[in-house]
């Protein structure tokens, strides 16, 4: 057990630091570019030296580095420290690119990956439907091959930021009679900028609009915009490349949330004294510290085991539920700390000068986290059956 990094990795860390010192923030004339241009420029340079998109081949715009979980972690730590731009967020880079790398055809890789990595192509996800939330096998959206094109009809929902996306990867039913039901699914790519597609943003409980309903009414897509073969959609959607995605299981999010909560407790008052000295608040923070520290050390262990090609087992299936539980605990404590500000709406565009009402976003958002990407009960089923080995229903 050694919580320090080895000399080799410390040297790598110094390299990363030196790169960052020279390259972020941009200097001179470049510092006058618009923010997103600065970010694009920086990302390009970070790819060149091998720090971003490490699992993507150079020919598709990646930096093609051997997988190294620890280097990935060091890059995240150091980039985070100076708030340098990291890999673009979103389902395009996180889901579509790995899927194409594993299951896509050559032209699909060449056509889609580089512009997805550069941010030119934004993607939306088309999995959930009104009656198939966590139950993909129930997908009803149809795709029929007709005159060399897929004709698509149906409805998707919970498609994050689809209103801004250019393309969608969609789970469709192309083989209506296949049994079992999930054998009838295909994974196809669709251009959203066409008359057959209607996108309706859903206003969410916080007032923001992050999710959309997407309606397909004889929308079209070329025959070869399918990833994998017809009927392979289920398998394609499960494909994950061995890449360097954080093995931390969300622990850094838990830690930073907790740190913000402690800062909040220091800044507000209860009975005329800083809340942090209130005995019940103090005790509750310490109890939460137990959970947050558990999550953190658990993530250290998962990271170390990944590095050593070991399987951390049971706990990997638990990460989302652990984050969810911590989010709920933080929400309850924040609720009790912000006092009257609980009666205020959350600010729609975050600004530095926002008051405690910005915690409303966390208070309500913690519910969204519990629901998005598989509700807590779906998580529990997975943990029970895959993790604990309890009998399937």
């Amino acid at each position, binding site marked *: 057990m050694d919580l320090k990094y080895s000399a080799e990795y410390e040297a790598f860390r110094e390299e990363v630091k030196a790169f960052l010192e020279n390259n972020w923030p941009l200097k001179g004339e470049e510092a006058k570019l618009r923010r997103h241009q600065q970010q694009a420029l920086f990302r390009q340079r970070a790819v060149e030296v091998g720090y971003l998109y490490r699992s993507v081949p150079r020919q598709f715009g990646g930096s093609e580095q051997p997988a190294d979980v620890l280097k990935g972690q060091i890059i995240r730590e150091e980039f985070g420290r100076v708030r340098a731009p990291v890999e673009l967020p979103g389902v395009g880079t996180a889901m579509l690119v790995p899927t194409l790398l594993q299951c896509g055809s050559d032209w699909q890789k060449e056509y889609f990956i580089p512009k997805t990595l550069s941010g030119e192509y934004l993607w939306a996800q088309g999995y959930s439907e009104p009656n198939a939330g966590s139950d993909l096998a129930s997908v009803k959206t149809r795709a029929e091959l007709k005159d060399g094109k897929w004709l698509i009809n149906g409805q998707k929902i919970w498609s994050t930021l689809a209103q801004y996306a250019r393309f969608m990867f969609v789970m469709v039913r192309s083989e209506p009679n296949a049994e079992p039901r999930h054998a009838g699914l295909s994974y196809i790519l669709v251009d959203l900028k066409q008359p057959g597609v209607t996108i309706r943003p859903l206003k969410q409980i916080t007032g923001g609009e992050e999710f959309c309903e997407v309606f397909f009414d004889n929308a079209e897509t070329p025959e070869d915009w399918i990833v994998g073969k017809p009927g392979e959609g289920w398998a394609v959607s499960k494909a994950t490349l061995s890449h360097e995605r954080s093995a931390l299981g969300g622990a850094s999010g838990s830690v930073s949330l907790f740190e913000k909560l402690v800062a909040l407790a220091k800044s507000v008052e209860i009975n005329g004294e800083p809340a942090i000295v209130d005995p019940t608040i103090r005790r509750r923070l310490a109890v939460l510290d137990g959970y947050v520290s558990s999550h953190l050390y658990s993530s250290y262990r998962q990271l170390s085991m990944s590095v050593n090609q070991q399987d951390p087992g049971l706990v990997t299936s638990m990460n989302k539920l652990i984050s969810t539980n911590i989010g709920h605990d933080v929400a309850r404590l924040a609720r009790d700390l912000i006092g009257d500000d609980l*009666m205020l709406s959350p600010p729609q565009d975050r600004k530095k000068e926002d008051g405690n009402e910005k915690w409303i976003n966390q208070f309500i958002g913690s519910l969204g986290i519990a629901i998005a990407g598989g509700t807590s009960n779906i998580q529990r089923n997975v943990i029970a059956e895959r993790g604990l080995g309890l009998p399937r229903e």
Partner: protein
Amino acid sequence: MNFLLSQEQVEIQRAIAGFLSKSCPSTTLHEIYDREEPYEPSIWQGLIELGVGALIVPEAFGGLGMEMIDLALISEVLGANAAPVPLLGHALVTLAIMHGGSDDQKANWLPKLAAGEVVATVAFDEGGQTWLPEQWRLSSSTRLSGRKRFVPHGMQANLILVGLSGGGFALVDASAEGLSRCAQDGIDRTRPVAEFVFDQVVADPLPGAEGLAEKVRDAALVLLAADSFGGASRAVESAVSYATIREQFGQPIGRFQGLKHQLVNTAVEVEPSRGLYWFAAHAFDHIAGKAEHAAALAKAHLCDRYLQTARDTVEAHGGIGYTWECDVQIYVKRAMFNFAFMGQPAVHFDRAADLAGW
């Protein structure tokens, strides 16, 4: 020994519920909720016509002379329907004048309140959770200067009861010179709030009475508790009903024991607790020695349970529960208002502990 509603009380609850289901069904509620000024006078007017405004006003002043329990029972129904009406302020102003007003004030205001000719509200909080009479600092003179926050229906009200230092009260006309009102961006759009700034505003002090401020406080706590019970019960019902209809994996989700047991746990947190507000309302009029404790405990327990229940209900609805279009969001936010208004549960649990004599 009869801890039970009278037939009359049951019928009043039914009448209010019936009126709201017609005048303010979910679609109407959402429409009002999304307005720039989320207020619809006709609904309040309809309730006035049903006698809600006159309920506790003494018969001598054109009222029905009923008790806190009757008002609390209505508050439960308003909570269950998340009704966007200014009952809370109306009730507290009425009570304050009934018990602490001068003869002139009574004669002037009580008939108008009973008839719904004024929209009345209360201005208590001065920032930093100063909800309780002993925390008010606005100095009690005939000219008021200072600030009050989170005045419910503050932009709609004509008559404002202002809490003053030492637990006194004064009435202020909403159009008085020197009073500026500013809508706050409140989370609960069924009871929109405003901030008031007083600059040498002419005020009409209530002569007051022994324990008046405490009585008004306890009434607020009881009504918030009742509203919370109503809201929490409705939230449970809606989750149960959604679980019965919504299908996943080929069957109603309510058949899955995981969700089923969660719904039970939530229901068990809510269903037994109505007696807390019944007892507190009953004690308010009939058991002086227990009224304060009962009101504190009812507010703390029920507002606490309501907010947790509303959150659990969002989760039980899945993605739909997280949308603006779903009714649950309105309940979550009403629960947030009830939780914080008049002080958080922590405050009242601690008061209840002290009042229990431990």
